[in-house]
C-alpha cells in the first residue's frame, strides 16, 4: 500500500453547477478497480419538478470522517494521504450508519452484498500518479483533478473551498468545491 506514486500536489476540484447530468463519470467510475464494477459516483436531479439542474458528488474525504466515526465495525479508515477508504469487506456489517450519517450523502449500501461501498478517489489510479476515472472523462469541467495552479489558470474567477458549514458543524475536506472568487466556505444551512 505504500505507493510512492501518490502525487500530494494534485487535488480534486468539483463544480456542480457545471454538471450537465451526462453520467459519463458514472460509466467511468464503474471501471475503477477498487469498486468492482459498481459506480460509486452520484449524479442526480436536484429537484426534478422545478428544474433540470443536476448535481454530481464524489467522496469529499473529510479530515475527520463522520462515516468512520459512526461505524460500529471499525470498517472505514483514513490513510496517510487523507483518502478515506471504502468499507473493509470482512468487517462491514452493512448497518448503513455511514450512509445515513455522511453529511454529503456519499456512501452507498449495496444491499445484495450487505456491504457499504464508496468512492476511494480511484485509489488504484491515484496511488500510482494517475487521475481518477471520473475526472478524466467529465466533458464540462464539473470534475477536475490537478494542481492548484492548473485550476487557478483555468478558473480565474473562482476559489476552491474545502470548508463546509452544516449549522453548528464545520466539516473540512480533502476535496474542493469551486466557489465565487474570494469565498472561504460554503454554508449549506
Amino acid at each position, binding site marked *: *500500500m505504500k*505507493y510512492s506514486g501518490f502525487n500530494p500536489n494534485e487535488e480534486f476540484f468539483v463544480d*456542480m*453547477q457545471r454538471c450537465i447530468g451526462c453520467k459519463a463519470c458514472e460509466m467511468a467510475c464503474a471501471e*475503477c*478497480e*477498487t*469498486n*468492482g464494477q459498481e459506480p460509486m459516483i*452520484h449524479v*442526480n*436531479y*436536484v*429537484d426534478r419538478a422545478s428544474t433540470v*439542474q443536476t*448535481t454530481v*458528488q464524489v467522496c469529499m474525504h473529510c479530515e475527520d470522517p*463522520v462515516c468512520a466515526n459512526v*461505524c*460500529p*465495525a*471499525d470498517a472505514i479508515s483514513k490513510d496517510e494521504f487523507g483518502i478515506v*477508504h471504502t468499507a473493509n*469487506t470482512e468487517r462491514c*456489517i*452493512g*448497518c*448503513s*450508519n455511514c*450512509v*445515513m*450519517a*455522511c*453529511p454529503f*450523502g456519499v*456512501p452507498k449500501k449495496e444491499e*445484495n*452484498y*450487505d*456491504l457499504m461501498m464508496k468512492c*476511494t478517489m480511484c*485509489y*488504484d489510479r491515484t*496511488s*500510482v500518479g494517475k487521475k481518477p476515472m471520473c475526472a478524466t472523462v467529465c466533458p464540462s469541467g464539473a470534475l477536475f483533478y490537478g494542481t492548484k495552479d492548473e485550476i487557478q489558470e483555468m478558473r480565474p*474567477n473562482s476559489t476552491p473551498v474545502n470548508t*463546509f458549514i*452544516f*449549522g*453548528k*458543524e464545520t466539516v473540512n475536506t480533502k476535496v474542493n*468545491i*469551486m*466557489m*465565487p*472568487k474570494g*469565498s472561504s466556505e*460554503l454554508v*449549506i*444551512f
Partner: protein
Amino acid sequence: MKNRSYNIKAMLIATLLSVLMVVLVFYGSRELQNFDAALVTYLFGTVFAFFGIVYRYTVWLQRPPTWIYFKRGVGFLFTGKIFSHFCFAVKESVENIAFQKFIYPRGKYRWLAHFMIAVGCTSAFLITIPLTFGWVHFTMAPNSISVYEAHFFGFKVMDFDLDSIMAFLTFHALNWSSYMVIFGAGYYLRRRLTNPGLIATQTFESDLLPLILLIAISVTGLGLTYSYEFMKGLAFDFLAVLHAVTVILFLIWIPFGKFFHIIQRPAQIAAHIYHKVGKQQGMAVCEHTGEEFTTNLHIKDLKKLTKKLGFDFDREDGTSHLDLSPEGKRSRLAQAHLRARQDGGNLFG
C-alpha cells in the same frame, strides 16, 4: 479510557474469563488425567488468544456505535415476540454466519472459497480445541483390541471399529479441514496477487499474512500425516515443531489481525434485527425527496450518536441535516452551491 493505554473493564473481563477457561480445562480434563502434555504449547497459545479476543471484543463493544447495536440487538431479542425474534436470529445466523450468503452475490467462487476456509477452520477448531483442553480423548474399549471409544469431559459419547470408514474419517478429520483451507486460501491468495483494486489497497500484514498462515498451517499439518503414512516418519519431529509454530502464530494473531472478523460477524445479525424492528416502528421520510429512506429509529439513534461523538448537524429550527436522505443531502448541497454562485453574480467563473 481517558489517557490510559489499556482498558480496565476489558482487562478485568478478559482475565476473569481466561481464568474460568483454565479452570474448565482442569476439570474438563478430569483434573488433567486426560490432558495431553504434548499439546501444552497449543494450550498456552489458545489461552493467550482467548484473553486477547475477549479484551479486544470488550474494548470494541464500548465504542458508542457498537454499543448501540449490541444494546438494541440484545434488547429486541428479549422483548415482545421473543420466540419470533429468536427464530429470526437463528435463521439469520444460519444464512449469514454458517453459509455467509452475502458473499455469493459478490462472486460465486469467492463465496465457495470463503465457505471452504470457514468450514475448514471451524471444523479444525472444534476438533483441536477440545483435544488441547483434554476435553476429548480416545481410549480402547475394555476387553477389545479393535473398538475405539471417544470421551467428552470424561463421559463416553461414541465408539467405532478401528478399520471402519468412521474411523478413517475421524482420524483424518483435520486433513479434510486442511484440504478445504488450502483450496480456499489458495484462491484468495491468487485473487490478491492479481486483482488491481486489491493490490492497490491491501497490506501484507492484514491481507496476505493471514492467507499465508492458513496455508502454512494446513500444509505442515498435512505433512505430519504424509510423513508417517508414506515417508516412514521422515522429518516428523521437525514438521511437528513447524506446525506448532505456525498454529501458535495464527492463534496469537487472531485478536489483532484479520481473523478478528470471525468474532465481529455476529454484529451483522444485530444490525438486521435492528432494521427489522425499526421498520415495524416506522420509516423516516426525506424532507427533500419525500421518500422513505431508513427507519425512524435509525435516524433517532444516529442523531444521539453523532452528538456523542462530537458532531452537531442540528438546524436552528430543531430539525437536523440527518433528517435528509443521502440524495436529499446531495441536492441541498447543490442548491446551497447554486445560491452561492448566484450571489457571486456568475453561475460558472
